[in-house]
């Protein structure tokens, strides 16, 4: 059995409204990528699926690509289209 990592996933704006939570603790196999987390999110929160296409991911407050490898304790945020200014 592979060892596992635990992440905190944060939701904001439209995605927080869809999931009805602001934060979710998630366990993935060691070596998991953002794309694996994304698949997991779609299973856990089907209502977030239509939003995911336009979202980016941030890991520990920096934008990361789908291929980014996650580490135990990471804080990952789902970032819907930003609208500052």
């Amino acid at each position, binding site marked *: 059995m592979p060892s596992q990592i635990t992440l905190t996933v*944060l939701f*904001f*704006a*439209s995605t927080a*409204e869809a999931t009805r939570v602001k934060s979710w603790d998630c366990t993935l196999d060691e070596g998991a990528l953002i794309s694996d987390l994304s698949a997991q999110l779609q299973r856990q929160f089907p209502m977030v699926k239509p939003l995911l296409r*336009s979202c980016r991911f*941030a890991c520990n*407050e*920096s*934008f990361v690509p789908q291929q980014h490898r996650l580490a135990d304790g990471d804080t990952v*945020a789902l*970032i*819907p*289209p*930003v*609208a*500052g*200014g």
Partner: protein
Amino acid sequence: MPVQLTEQPLDVSGLINAARRAHAGALAVFIGTIRDHAQNRSVTAIDYSAYESMAEAVLQTIEEECAKQWPDVYVLCHHRVGHLVVGDDAVVIVASSPHRSEAFEACRHVIERIKEDCPIWKKEWDEQGASWVSPRP
């Protein structure tokens, strides 16, 4: 603080004066305000929310980009969050520089980069209710 998210009304004069430097003869300022319409709908208010720690980190990064590209320019940027009504200021950016080109360019850079990458969201209120704004569909 050179860059900051705040729930308090933005102090335009205070920020302009805080950016003044005796060697800097040029100040470029950008103010983004809540306007009364968007895409032909009338807007009454906007709720701004943010991933606050990351938003401040991104503002900090943007400021470092300016410092690298325009070493003589001093940049301040405050962005408001919370419930804003028409006429309220959402963002104030001030760039002071010995030369006006750099001041304009840095000021413009900051607002463009905020709109690209700063994790801030707005929910617009009109007569029908509220909806999230998606400028990058």
